[in-house]
């Protein structure tokens, strides 16, 4: 119980820090004045611009935490993460197509749909390749993921090079690739919050079966789990979660990898507590990373994905080293 109160407290604190952070740091009294309905430009910047972005960053982080936990649970591999298994790259390719290729349907519809299709397709491709290669283990899946991610990123670069007109579309794609939470309008933020809660509920429905799968495929079947069908379904669910995260936050690296690990240290490996804990950790990490992105190098803003990659890369190497040693 203490862990949960601490996590929630930490999230609230990081949201406050996120709201205060910027090139122009707000003091506590500034925050209070803005929240009280002050109409000064700085106060409105805080309420109308910064706060929705901070909350969106928290949602994106929570989605990444959930997605990472589901993928690690499905592949029973603590090194699995959406970014490495190609689903984030697939979502980004889908979004790039939606942004750059003129299509008949409106972009607000096409973008999330193509992002989802890309995420799912890429993940299935990775699983398919490692199956065909007869290497459904951690290393095989990671290698297939790296290969697929490389191909996808090359395709995306080519689309950007060939179809860009140096104007808005390319900029949006770029900000996607480097990762960055866009400030949503309040209704869109409401939608994002609803999606995040739906994703939490959806993944919690998988929790018990993820635990059983964690006993190994043979034991899982003996315990009554239809393993192949469950894996396919869980990958679909995980891809949906990742697609939502990527649609709102672009490619934010390593959060999906790190959050489940930190959460496992805090609440243990059972998925029912792990999923919400990982969502909270992800929310905290992305909120703080976004605060750094906005305030570290004034007047510039560092892309969020770069901040998380710089922080997460060493974390990944540490994990890998620990795993190789055992």
């Amino acid at each position, binding site marked *: 119980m203490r862990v949960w109160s601490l996590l929630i407290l930490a999230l609230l604190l990081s949201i406050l820090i996120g709201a205060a952070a910027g090139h122009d740091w707000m003091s506590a009294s500034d925050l209070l004045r803005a929240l009280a309905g002050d109409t000064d430009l700085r106060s409105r910047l805080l309420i109308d611009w910064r706060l929705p972005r901070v909350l969106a960053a928290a949602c994106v982080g929570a989605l990444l935490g959930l997605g990472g936990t589901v993928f690690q649970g499905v592949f029973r591999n603590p090194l699995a993460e959406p970014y490495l298994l190609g689903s984030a790259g697939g979502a980004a390719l889908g979004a790039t197509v939606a942004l750059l290729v003129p299509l008949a349907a409106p972009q607000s519809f096409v973008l999330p749909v193509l992002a989802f299709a890309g995420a799912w397709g890429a993940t299935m491709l990775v699983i398919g390749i490692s199956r065909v290669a007869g290497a459904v283990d951690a290393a095989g899946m990671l290698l297939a993921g790296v290969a697929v991610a490389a191909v996808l990123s090359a395709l995306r670069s080519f689309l950007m090079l060939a179809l860009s007109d140096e104007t808005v579309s390319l900029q949006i794609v770029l900000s996607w690739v480097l990762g960055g939470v866009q400030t949503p309008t309040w209704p869109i933020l409401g939608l994002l919050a609803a999606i995040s809660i739906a994703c939490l509920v959806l993944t919690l429905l998988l929790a018990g079966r993820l635990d059983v799968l964690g006993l190994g495929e043979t034991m899982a079947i003996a315990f009554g789990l239809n393993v192949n069908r469950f894996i396919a379904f869980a990958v679909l669910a995980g891809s949906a979660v990742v697609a939502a995260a990527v649609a709102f936050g672009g490619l934010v690296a390593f959060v999906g990898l790190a959050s489940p690990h930190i959460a496992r240290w805090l609440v243990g490996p059972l998925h029912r507590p792990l999923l919400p804990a990982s969502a909270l950790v992800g929310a905290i990490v992305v909120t703080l990373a976004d605060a750094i992105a906005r305030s570290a190098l004034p007047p510039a*803003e560092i892309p969020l994905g770069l901040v998380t990659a710089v922080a997460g890369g060493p974390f990944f190497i540490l994990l890998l080293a620990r795993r190789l040693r055992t």
Partner: protein
Amino acid sequence: MIKTAVLVGALVLAAPLRAEPVTVRDAFDRSVTVPEPPQRIVTIFASNTEMVAALGLADRIVGIEAYTRYPPEVLKKPLVGGRLGFSVDEVVAQRPDLVVVTPSRQAANQLVDPMQRLGIPIVVLLQRNVPEILSNIRLLGRLTGVPERGELLASSLQARLDKVDQRVAGRKKPSVIMITGRLGNGLLLVTRPGTYTGDAIVRAGGNLAFNAGTIAQVSPEAVFNADPDLLLFAGNEKDMTELIGRPGWSDMRAVRTKRVHAVNRAELLIPGPRTIDGIERLANIFHPPAATQ
């Protein structure tokens, strides 16, 4: 004398005599309205800064970005962005009543939405050819409450363009490749058609040797194959000499006939009033005044 007259004129025109709102349509087809002539303008990118300064409004500029180098009087203004993007915080901290931006390096993507939401007028300018530069000057003149000044500046620039046009008309157009940058992987950035720089070359009486394709990166091999009459290098002589001293370049026609020229980056790669200077200089390179055809 002239300087004083300009100053007085600028002061008279800048005075908020007419307080009625002005509405324009920008490059994104957005309707931008300023309730009264803006007094605190953030100009993102050198081109927009130079245009506003050329309207005599340099003192109204309250924020620029890190790669602005001209005119000298604005260089001390606060920076609101740079290579890594643009800061909503810093822009708002200047309390601007107009933001001028071009959709490049994330600027429009990062700034249009927040400024709209905070009710700060933001105008987006595109310059895909030389006439658009002139129409941007007129638009900025209207928006900042100095329409006559914008009109005057634009038509004097137009007159100079017409003069160049007359001079180069009917002459044999040399084929031209302009190298605007070199990438670490050996590829070269070249001027494409459909850009103001490409348009400037055509207006100066040249022909783009690469007249199709949308990818700006080409290999040196493609440049060798095109073998243009004239090779332009946007940068200094030293870098140019180093580049054409590399293997393969000496076989090119332009190198053999010594028709390789370093040209001023600021004049040809910043779509502002100085672009017209650049066009005049290019016309002299393509069609030397002394030469007869």
